[in-house]
């Protein structure tokens, strides 16, 4: 790859597309983005929005009434002179003289106004009491409320949850530090919170409430006082908005990128680039660079706007760097989609699928930044942590960013395999194109080993996503073969087995379909064994999971049981457990390979058998160890 050629292609990609979009369209897009950013910024900053409910309730009350101050403090109310006739004319909803309500609410609006006044009164009283010099008299009962990062199994887990019983956090005012086990994943410091606030700002859940205004405070449960009924778990509103801010621009970028890449294929426009001295890498890199730079630039702008607009308390290059792997993943998936799609119609379907899938992967875990270590699966979690002023460790950074970055590079590699004359302009269905892409990396039998290793980042990302989406089912028990496993674990095991068996065998099938391998039993067994060996070697890459607290969750432990061994085992047992996965992967890959060598239906049948064998193995191990 030649940097100068790559940069030239990039320059002309910008020039060419600048001529393809008219200024009005750019203006409308820019305004839409600004408007969206402004709304999000208002939400993040805790503003009350456009004040659409200001003055919607008209209350007749004079200054002598104690309710005057309540209504004056609440912009929802419009204070009027007390006038019974106005009530009759429906020009006032409420009428107070002293402390007495003079009118009986009849309409829905009047009833809503009364409810709002009562809520407002409660808040007014809380604020008044909070200012009282004698706090003991004002609040006879004090409750220390600490929101801690979830660790170990869910407390709703009916299977006992030994790992979580040390992290109980709201059991009264005695403080919780002594009950927090050191293995509970950062929960111990939550006990340092001050008693009155209960905002949890000493714990990992802390910063959120402090940075939000009225809406945010309510949503995040940062209640300053009131009755026990006011206490509710925090909703990760701030994380949601921040993650949203970063993920939306990426979806715009991939639309433009996808159509640019596809247009090179339609009508053979890209053919002439292929006969220039620029290599495939130069062309793909050059055409991708502007979009990569654009997306990262937007992320940098958002970070700067949040930081220097005093909307977010922190924010640094860490947030921008964390976005890079995600951008690479989005672009690479789109690139593959553009190489597979046969038309813009098909590309639309592909990009929507990519958008939904990757947005879910990146966005959903990030919402729970302050709730569960599973959130670290998404690089956006690092962004949220950085913007809310929480430290981001190197191990967390690597754990969050390495899988999507490597997956992105693998996807670029697969797509680049099709970026040549004979594949680029053919109109083959997407599944066949996928096989073409896989077959592009196969030259000899040893390619089976290489491909299994190369595809591993995809496997890791898919498995992490499965954990993220299924961990909520961890608390649901399922009686399978007399065991009492959680539904989440069973489903995760199932999904993981399917992903791994496909990763080990699909490239083998592609090799057979493209006549790269000899269709003999001996050859099939050898290729399968090599594929299994490759996967086993690559699987050790899952040790990256140790960088996170993922194993502190039963579902994470179940998912990663192939990568790590329990401590304290005798050496021979540890050795056996280390080698058993090798045997498993080799056997199941060989089964699939034999099927693949005999055609599509035989492959499907053999793959099913391999999946069943693999699941049985995994389930047995998990039932024994977890």
């Amino acid at each position, binding site marked *: 790859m030649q940097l100068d*050629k790559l940069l*030239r*292609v990039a*320059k*002309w990609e910008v*020039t*060419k*597309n600048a*001529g*393809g979009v008219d200024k009005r369209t750019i203006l409308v897009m820019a305004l839409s983005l600004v408007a969206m950013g402004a709304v999000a910024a208002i939400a993040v900053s805790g503003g009350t929005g456009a004040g659409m409910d200001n003055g919607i309730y008209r209350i007749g009350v004079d200054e002598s009434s104690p309710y005057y101050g309540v209504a004056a403090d609440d912009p929802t109310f419009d204070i009027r002179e007390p006038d019974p006739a106005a009530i009759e004319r429906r020009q006032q909803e409420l009428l107070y003289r002293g402390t007495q309500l003079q009118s009986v609410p009849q309409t829905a609006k009047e009833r809503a106004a009364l409810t709002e006044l009562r809520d407002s009164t409660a808040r007014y009283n809380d604020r008044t009491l909070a200012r009282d010099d004698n706090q003991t008299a004002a609040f006879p009962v004090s409750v220390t409320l600490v929101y801690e990062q979830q660790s170990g199994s869910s407390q709703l887990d009916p299977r006992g949850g030994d790992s979580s019983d040390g992290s109980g956090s709201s059991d009264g005012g005695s403080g919780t530090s002594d009950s927090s086990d050191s293995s509970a994943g950062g929960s111990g410091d939550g006990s340092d919170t001050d008693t009155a606030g209960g905002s949890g700002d000493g714990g990992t859940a802390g910063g959120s409430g402090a940075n939000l205004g009225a809406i945010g405070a309510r949503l995040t449960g940062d209640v300053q006082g009131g009755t026990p009924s006011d206490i509710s778990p925090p909703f990760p509103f701030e994380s949601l908005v921040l993650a949203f801010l970063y993920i939306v621009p990426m979806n715009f970028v991939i639309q433009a990128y996808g159509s640019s890449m596809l247009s090179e294929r339609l*009508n*053979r*426009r890209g*053919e*002439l*680039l*292929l*006969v*220039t*001295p*620029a*290599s495939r890498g130069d062309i793909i890199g050059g055409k991708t660079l502007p979009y990569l730079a654009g997306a990262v630039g937007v992320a940098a702008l958002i970070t700067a706007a949040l930081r220097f607009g005093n909307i977010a308390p922190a924010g640094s290059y860490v947030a921008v760097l964390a976005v890079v792997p995600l951008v690479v993943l989005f672009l690479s998936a789109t690139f593959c989609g553009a190489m597979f799609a046969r038309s813009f119609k098909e590309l639309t379907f592909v990009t929507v699928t990519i958008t939904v899938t990757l947005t879910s992967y990146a966005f959903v875990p990030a919402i729970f930044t302050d709730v569960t270590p599973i959130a670290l699966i998404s690089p956006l979690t690092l962004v949220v942590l950085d913007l809310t002023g929480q430290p981001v460790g190197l191990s967390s950074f690597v754990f969050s960013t390495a899988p999507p970055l490597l997956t992105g590079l693998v996807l670029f590699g697969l797509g680049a395999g099709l970026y040549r*004359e*004979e594949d680029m302009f053919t109109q083959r269905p997407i599944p066949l194109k996928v096989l073409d892409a896989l077959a592009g990396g196969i030259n000899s039998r040893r390619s089976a080993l290489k491909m299994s290793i190369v595809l591993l980042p995809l496997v890791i990302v898919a498995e992490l996503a499965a954990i993220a989406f299924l961990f909520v089912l961890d608390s649901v028990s399922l009686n399978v073969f007399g065991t009492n496993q959680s539904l989440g674990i069973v489903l995760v095991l199932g999904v993981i087995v399917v992903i791994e068996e496909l990763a080990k065998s699909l490239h083998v099938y592609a090799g057979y379909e493209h*006549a790269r391998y000899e269709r003999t039993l001996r050859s099939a067994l050898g290729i399968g064994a090599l594929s299994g060996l490759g996967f086993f070697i690559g699987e050790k890459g899952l040790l990256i999971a140790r960088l996170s607290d993922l194993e502190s969750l039963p579902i994470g432990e179940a998912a990663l049981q192939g990568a790590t061994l329990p401590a304290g085992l005798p050496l021979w047992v540890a050795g056996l457990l280390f080698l058993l996965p090798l045997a498993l992967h080799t056997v199941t890959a060989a089964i699939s390979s034999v099927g693949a060598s005999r055609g599509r239906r035989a492959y499907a049948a053999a793959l099913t058998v391999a999946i069943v064998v693999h699941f049985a193995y995994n389930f047995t191990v998990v039932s024994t160890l977890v």
Partner: protein
Amino acid sequence: MIDARDIRKEYGGFVAVQGSSFSVDRGEVFGIIGPNGAGKTTTLKMLAGLLEPTSGTAEIAGLDTETAEMRQQLGFLPEESPLYEEMTPISYLKFFADLYDVPPDVAEERMHDTLDELELEHRDRKLGDMSKGMKRKVAIARSLINDPDVLIYDEPASGLDPLTTNYVIEFTEQLAKEGKTIVFSAHNLFHVESICDRVVIMNEGEIVARGDLDELQAEYGHTRYHVYTTVDVPDGVQENGSYKRVVESMDAVEKTREQAEANGGDVVDIRTEESSLEEVFLNVAEAGTRGTRYVEEDAE
């Protein structure tokens, strides 16, 4: 200058080109003709480095066709060359000049000279707004922006009106006179006949005949003899005060002479007429169904 050795291309089980070998000398204009699906375009794309031969090798100026160095010396014009329609001819040519490392001042001069020669106006108009003929001229200019030694043109006049077609063919002839080595394919055999030094005829992925025009005519064509007599002879047609009989062998000429003399007349003129390339092509195609014959050289 160009050396193709047993180049073969398979797509799955389909053989598009079956082990073709040929060479093209520097400054030569080499034609590839054949019916649709004969493998002409696949062969040209293998020469241009766009397609990797399943087996065999192709070299241009001693360089493998897949190297960047070779591409630097090559100008390729595919049968259909869709352009970036949002660009103008100038920006389009500058883009390619950039990719070929042509210095900006050289590129500027070269592209304006070429566009002048091609008589292309409206150079600031978007390519999407141009006619097919104008676009083809831009595509030709693009193929020359790096001043290549070798030009591979696949149906350069395909789909153009007769006026533009003639213009393009004349321009290609001019390039040949300037010393460019040109490999050229066309459906219009008249064009091939007019500018090619040597020709290969392909059918079903195979070279079924090769040679210069004389050799091909000698092997696949017919020499017709127009025998003019002073008296009527069998199958004779009156023409300009004499009688003309068309025969295809010297024996028949002699027999006609005898018939004329028997009738008291004589032969006054004999003219020869060679087969056109089109006739040669048709004969080869017909022969191809009965078996392949080679004319000039054995396939290496």
